């Protein structure tokens, strides 16, 4: 059942920025090497800040930034911003976390802090530090302990007076700031303390903490709407976390920390988003992968009837909720685009014909389904929409695609996704990519202004150096003959692969077992691992001896997840190696066309086979002379297990 893994996922998320990738093992070295050259410091700091960092990581980055400033190095393209913090609690820890988190959002932040417990004095005195530094904004980070908050259970008048006094307190501070400078205010609302006085009745009894905090928060929201000041909705943040988790009485007592330090990275990330949005950084377009992102399964393999998208089916529901959320985002003005490795008509079929699909072609502004790399497609989408790459978000279940886009197009936001699609929406939302400081009717109408819906654009060029990216993956390919341990997975691949499958021949587990001992057959099971993890078994080949010195390739299939990584040519090199060992002179391959395998129509041609005839049903025959075949070195390390013959090891 899914239940236990979901629970694990949730506790893992505690306080973490789980939509960001984990920091690399050489994080500390990368922090140190930021200052190695005075060029490109801003970009390097932005890159190391863009991970799921804890407080100590953030402090390191803040230290690097401080050193950069001491050395007077330029921080472009980071945009300078000066923030004053007024708080009734300890801000010593908040400032470095804010500085590092702002770098993640392209902001070079400087913080000016008020003295502890001197909020009103600082706000009202024109000579205070927060004004002499001319901040761009002032964060009013008062929690419930920073307001005159006296409970008066059941006393309506006293409760009203308390609420008015609290709102007046805030108003005095904001007016002071408005009088003495040009800074806008970022006003934090309140998180109720956890303690209850009457219990369930607290919420409706005047003068309890819950009731007072509710009223004050409504007053704060009303006082901000329509002004230039911004609301920082810490209430929502603490609700998402859970109030009992958010508050730490021990840490308040020990060091006057306003909330549990576990959540400092999260708090800082949310402030940084607001600041970045103030400086015009916001994302406008959500690019959706299709297979296993918008529906369950692979449309090219599973077909219209096979994809999981049904109401009442837990997996189908998860994908429907992704579609529903995408549509909600579109309603508030976010453009939707598609980038999928598929044939165009295959990818569009569910949008046109599947009864459960909520997303339709009319909702998609640009629809890119082809076999080119995603970075190139995302670039084409961005150019077509005249939106910068920094306005794009890619939702994709495939970790390799995510990593590749992050490497080649670092401006594009690519959330990490958990294994369970039920959490895709939560993760996308937690990433906060579409933060806005204002919202107008015009924003909501924007998607409709784009004509020619679901149009396809032609790719001009590759988006970056894909080969050097592949080299950085340190792929390790492992070849083995069929064996008992691999039998179940081999059988599964043989019976479910449709797209990258030259002959689409299906075999039972007993057939596969027989092949393990068949002296007239040569078999390969292929695994691929890389720096991002183990992809498991991804390819299967069966050769049968035909005549004295010919191997007929009965089956050659591959998982589409590893397309574009030169696995096919590595497999051919391995086949050639073994052919030479077995004194095989020639390979005979055939392509049997089906409705789903057009992807591999030119497979043998690409690998250097020559045509050897064609049948009326479209079956094409190909041959390769072993002696004439080109020997190449695919960009991966080759390992072998379980072969009886002494294969010469060619390492690359």
């Amino acid at each position: 059942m899914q239940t236990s893994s979901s629970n694990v996922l949730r506790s893992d998320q505690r306080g973490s920025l789980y939509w960001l990738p984990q920091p690399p093992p050489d994080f500390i070295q990368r922090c140190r090497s930021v200052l190695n050259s005075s060029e490109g410091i801003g970009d390097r700091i932005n890159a190391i800040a863009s991970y799921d960092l804890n407080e100590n990581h953030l402090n390191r980055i803040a230290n690097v930034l401080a050193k950069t400033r001491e050395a007077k190095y330029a921080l472009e393209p980071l945009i300078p911003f000066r923030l004053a913090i007024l708080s009734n609690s300890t801000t010593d820890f908040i400032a470095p976390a804010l500085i590092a988190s702002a770098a993640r959002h392209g902001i070079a932040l400087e913080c000016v802090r008020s003295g502890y417990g001197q909020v009103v004095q600082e706000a009202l005195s024109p000579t205070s530090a927060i004004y002499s530094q001319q901040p761009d904004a002032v964060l009013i980070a008062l929690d419930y302990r920073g307001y005159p908050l006296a409970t008066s259970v059941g006393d309506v008048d006293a409760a009203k007076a308390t609420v008015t006094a609290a709102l007046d307190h805030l108003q005095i501070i904001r007016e002071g700031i408005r009088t003495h400078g040009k800074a806008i205010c970022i006003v934090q609302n309140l998180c109720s303390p956890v303690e209850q006085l009457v219990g369930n009745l607290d919420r409706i009894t005047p003068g309890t903490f819950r009731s007072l905090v509710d009223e004050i928060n409504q007053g704060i929201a009303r006082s901000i709407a329509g002004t230039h000041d911004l609301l920082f909705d810490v209430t929502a943040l603490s609700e998402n976390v859970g109030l009992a988790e958010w508050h730490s009485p021990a840490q308040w007592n020990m060091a006057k920390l306003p909330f549990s330090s576990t959540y400092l990275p999260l708090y800082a990330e949310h402030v940084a988003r607001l600041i970045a949005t103030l400086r015009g950084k916001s994302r406008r377009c959500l690019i959706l992968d299709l297979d296993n992102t918008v529906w369950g399964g692979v449309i090219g393999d599973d077909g219209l009837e096979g994809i999981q998208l049904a109401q009442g089916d837990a997996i189908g529901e998860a994908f429907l909720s992704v579609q529903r959320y995408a549509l909600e985002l579109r309603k508030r003005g976010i453009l939707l685009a598609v980038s999928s490795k598929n044939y165009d008509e295959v990818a569009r079929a569910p949008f046109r014909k599947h009864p459960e699909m909520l997303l339709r072609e009319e909702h998609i502004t640009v629809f890119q389904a082809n076999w080119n790399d995603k970075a190139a497609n995302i670039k084409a989408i961005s150019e077509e929409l005249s939106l910068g790459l920094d306005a794009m978000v890619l939702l994709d279940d495939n970790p390799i695609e995510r990593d590749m886009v992050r490497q080649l197009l670092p401006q594009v936001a690519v959330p990490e996704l958990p294994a369970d699609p039920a959490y895709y929406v939560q993760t996308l939302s937690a990433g906060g990519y579409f933060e806005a400081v204002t919202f107008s009717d015009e924003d909501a109408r924007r998607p409709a202004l784009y004509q020619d819906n679901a149009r396809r654009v032609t790719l001009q060029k590759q988006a970056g150096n894909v080969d050097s990216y592949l080299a950085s993956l340190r792929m390790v390919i492992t070849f083995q003959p069929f064996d008992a341990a691999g039998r179940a997975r081999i059988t599964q691949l043989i019976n479910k692969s449709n797209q990258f499958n030259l002959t689409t021949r299906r075999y039972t587990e007993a057939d596969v077992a027989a092949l393990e001992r068949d002296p007239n057959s040569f078999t390969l099971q292929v695994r691929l691992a890389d720096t991002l993890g183990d992809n498991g078994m991804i390819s299967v080949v069966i050769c049968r001896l035909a005549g004295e010195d010919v191997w007929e390739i009965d089956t050659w299939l591959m998982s589409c997840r590893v397309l574009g990584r030169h696995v096919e040519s590595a497999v051919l090199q391995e086949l050639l190696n073994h052919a030479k060992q077995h004194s095989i002179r020639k390979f005979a391959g055939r392509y049997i066309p089906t409705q789903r395998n057009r992807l591999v129509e030119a497979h043998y041609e690409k690998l250097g086979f020559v045509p050897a005839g064609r049948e009326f049903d479209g079956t094409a025959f190909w041959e390769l002379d072993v002696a004439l075949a080109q020997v190449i070195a695919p960009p991966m390390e080759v390992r072998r297990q379980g072969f009886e013959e002494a294969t010469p090891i060619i390492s690359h």
Partner: protein
Amino acid sequence: MESVEIYSKLNNVFHDVFDDDEIVVHPNLTADDVDGWDSLRHVRLLLTVEQTFGVKFSASEAIKLNNVGDLANLVQSKIKS
């Protein structure tokens, strides 16, 4: 958890908190021996130790700590119980 393992983890915590990989923790190490070990850094240190070992310290436990040896012993007693 073995005492060696606790000290090895504490070593990493100190490197992280003080941003100084030269520090070698030992039982007699005190705030006087480490640059920048002020009251704020002390709080940061205790919070990081709590997170690293999955334990919580009460205020009365925290104020009794005189050196790293006390801290390691406190961690060990928490992990056992």
